[in-house]
């Protein structure tokens, strides 16, 4: 067993905001009908947090449930626990029509911190980043420049961006470029 390595090995950059490849996260794609009580129950039991509402994230301890679509969730947990959690979920779900797969290595997580994170994101994503429209606890799946990504606002100065692993270098370069010192737009 060798030491797993994240896509960019925790690369970082300081500018308008601090850009950080957040290292390895446990990530589990869950497909199932949120409205199905059995599904919701099983997920909540294993995750230990409540089901999120539309486009929201519920966190508890080191676990988070991200709303991805009416029949998809992304469960964040410690990397080492992902495999075991998938097994637990699969057991808990039993005969319920659902799918749980480990995608920890398929995706990469970036953390954006600082007072200008909204500027940085608004340079890349066609999303209303005004504080009134995009509040902490919300998640939005969209595109960053030319790649798909999900952005989750943890708090007013912390955002997490999740995209596919193969485009990690592109996403990192994008974020660094958008965070070039002295380029704040200053409208938020």
């Amino acid at each position, binding site marked *: 067993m060798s030491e797993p390595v994240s896509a960019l090995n925790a690369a970082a950059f300081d500018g308008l905001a601090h850009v950080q490849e957040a290292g390895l996260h446990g990530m589990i794609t869950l497909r199932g009908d949120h409205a199905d009580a059995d599904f919701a129950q099983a997920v909540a039991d294993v995750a230990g947090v409540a089901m999120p509402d539309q486009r929201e994230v519920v966190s508890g301890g080191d676990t988070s449930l991200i709303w991805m679509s009416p029949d998809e969730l992304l469960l964040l947990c410690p990397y080492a626990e992902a495999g075991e959690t998938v097994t637990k979920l699969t057991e808990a779900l039993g005969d319920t*029509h659902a799918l749980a*797969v480990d995608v*920890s290595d398929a995706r990469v997580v970036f953390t954006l911190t600082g007072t200008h994170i909204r500027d940085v994101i608004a*340079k890349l994503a066609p999303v209303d980043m005004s504080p009134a*429209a995009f509040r902490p606890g919300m998640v939005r799946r969209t595109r960053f420049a030319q790649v798909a990504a999900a952005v989750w606002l943890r708090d007013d100065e912390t955002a997490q961006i999740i995209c596919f692993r193969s485009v990690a270098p592109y996403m990192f370069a994008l974020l660094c470029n958008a965070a070039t010192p002295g380029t704040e737009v200053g409208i938020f």
Partner: protein
Amino acid sequence: MSTRLATGGRLTDRTKQMKFRFNGQQMRGVEGDTLASALLANGQLMMGRSFKYHRPRGPVASGSEEPNALVNLGQGARFEPNQRATTTELFDGLVAASQNHWPSLQFDVGAINTHLSRFLPAGFYYKMFIHPRPLWKHVYEPFIRRSAGLGAAPDAETVDADTYEHFYTFTDVLVLGGGVAGLQAALTAARSGAQVLLLEQNAHWGGRTPVDGGEIDGKPAEQWIKDTVQALEAMGNVTLRSRTMGAGVYDHGYVLGYERLTDHAPETPGPRHRLWRIRAQQIVTATGAIERPLSFAGNDVPGVLLASAIRDYVVNYGVSIGDRTVVVTNNDDAYRTAICLHGHGLNVPVIIDARMQGGGALMAQAEALGIRVLKGKAIAKVKGTRKVTAVEICDQAGEGAVLETIPCDAVAMSGGWSPVVHLWSHCGGKLSWDEGNAFFRPDLSRAPTSHDGAPFVIPAGSANGYIQLKDTLADATTAGSSAATAAGHQPKVGTLPQVAPREEAAMLPVWLMPQGANVKLRSKAWLDFQNDVKVSDIQLAAQEGYESVEHAKRYTTLGMATDQGKLSNINGLATLSAALGEAIPSVGTTTFRPPYTPISMGSIAGQARGDIFQPVRETPLHGWHEAHGVHWEPVGQWRRPYSFVQQDETVEQSVNREVKAARDSLGLLDASTLGKIVVKGPDAGKFLDMLYTNMMSTLPVGKCRYGLMCNENGFLMDDGVVARMSDDTWLCHTTTGGAERIHAHMEEWLQTEWWDWQVYCANVTEQYAQIAVVGPNARKLLEKLGGMDVSRETLPFMQWAAGTLGGFPVRIFRISFSGELSYEIAVPASQGLALWERLHAEGAEWNATPYGTEALHILRAEKGFIMIGDETDGTVIPQDLGLGWAISKKKADYIGKRAQARSHMTDPTRWQLVGLETVDGSVLPDGALAVASGTNANGQRHTQGRVTSTYHSPTLNRGIAMGLVLNGPDRMGEVLEFTKLDGTTIPTKIVNAVFLDPEGEKQNV
């Protein structure tokens, strides 16, 4: 001669001197100057040459409507042609050169055209150069092309030294234009609590009101503007941006904002331009109005300017165009210029007013100052070539008989004002003709509508046809509150800004001066200054039947210059309608298209350049490949190793080495890019049976099956190995290009056709690094790593197993795309590199050789395996490729089945896949065609086949190829002639497509 006055210049700071160069000559300006005002201050009135006749040209305007004063700005990687001097803020060290002349601005050979102008009327080139044909090709056209263009082309190797970026923002109310109307509209809207974004194209707020003077709320306009800007800046819900132009209005409230961050200070770090992509619920266009020139002979001579522009240069920059300025007008506003000049101690010998009874209060004021006013008169002709020397005066009512000649060195003309309706019109806003003011104004009953079908653009102030300050502010207030209301906010009723009414006499539409001007005068009366379109040209267009305004525009090129007709369109339109004897509104306008003024290509591309031009997708082994002599091949956005070239090796040699290694001993392939999609659910088997041409529901757990996927039109779209993971779960492998496409294809059918089927799928492509271990020694290597039984008995061909291999959690698929003993190992991506390095190291004893896509291609071609994208091209069905065995006869239906039953799909003459071998062993060219005898009805040579892929086989040491041939499988051994691009053909034998190990003994060991 133009010069800097002793005092004045509200926008300039004379204590801050600046140096700049124009045509190599050192000049001085002051902070706050535009390049135009600085040049004028240096006595440089002539700034360029016109497009067609190369006539000397000075500025006619002071803003973005300027057609003449265009320069080549900057140098090297910061060079930019066609910059308007009137909107270019001066900075220290600026370098500019005038355009469109040779050898010099003063002496220009091309000026010969002005003497030939009589022979070069509108559309002359449609009538000339027709015979003899060779001359057009070799002489005329090349000459026309060489004389094309205005600004110089950037050097061919120029790579832009500046950077650019985009920015997305959303707002309730977007106000375009920071003049008094824009400020008042923004203030009104903001008071309702709406989010307001206010953009102004210039560096200064307030538009031209400070120049025109007047009082608002009992204080000077300039003070009111300062106070209002302060008030707005203090409001949390308002954002103001100067040097940012509303460039275009698009559907559903989308607006481009063009922010010029460093044009005025090129050394500042950061992006040069920022392109804002704004979504606004409501847009207020407070874009002001533009003064119209008058059409009289010689109105293009340097020194003839718009009256408002002459006023601007004096008041804003303390610069005069000349000492003796003749004012000519059809309205009251131009009197302000006379009064202003007089106030600055400059001489106004006469005001020529085309109106019989002259003007109102302003005229009285001018006369009181002792300025001579002539009523009902006109300019017959302006004298002078490089600059104005005098004007000849005549009766406006007549044909141009000269009554008096008045020496002067400048002419201030005013033909009235036209609202700037571009942004209102971009997205479909319609116009109505205002008879009294002789201009088009927005027709509020036909506004552009948005996604909800409701209007989303509201014009304000003079952009809405309210030219008088009092009306402007009143209308802006209305616009602001309507915008707020429409955006769902409750406007607070504030008090209207108080402005003393100003009585002005009505303007008189004057489209030609004098009204009966003879043809000599008409052919010297300019409409479009840059493109050299004159009154006589439009009249010729009408005479020749180019009656639609679009025909006339395109025939004469009126309004097609870089100013897009800001000055010329209305005058040209009026001239056309007069020539046709039709009312102006019935002739209509040309379409207004974005952008309002040109925006840099760089800003459109934004940050997408260099390493972020486009995403490059990297496998977990990318870095290792980089470090080991890889030659990349782009496959979609992926980079895949084409080959790993070692020192003193050509690419071809390295490919051959890689192929041989895999055949004789051990090869390693990074197969991570292959798509992997998990399909799970009670109906997953049924679903896959519809998706693939063959049966997947019957695949036993633990086994693999090769499958074909067609689209509903019957054509082969993808292939790959499907593995049954468990009772209700399958893993589908796709091609590299296929992962996203096929995943989307699955979701589409599940969501939009079979939504009652219980199936979920997930794209897990990037969860794994996938490594193919290929060759006779493959099993030895895996056994050496240990941990799993990979023997023929436990893991036979076309089965898979999960386990721990040498400490790595893996899935091993016993599949082969090379015909060799082969294992594809999937490992979590974050351990991919470690496993690859391990395999490479442990495999050293068998000379483990990494190979790339070209070797992969050859290996599969030697075995006659098809490749999506080579054997298929979107027109090929599985039946063409001898893949009938992979099409289930048992299934009632699968995607593409019905399509494959159409007459052309079942046609026995469809070309079929075969192997091809040149008789001389050489390699067939890619895409070569097999010729047949005779030609078709269109004289095209008949063909009977084509090459789909062709390689040199290192194993067989000869050229091998696959191709589609008419009745191919029945013609084994027959020799056909295939085309070469040198015109000859190569004799080529039809053979079995499986060139190597037809029994498959090597892969089944």
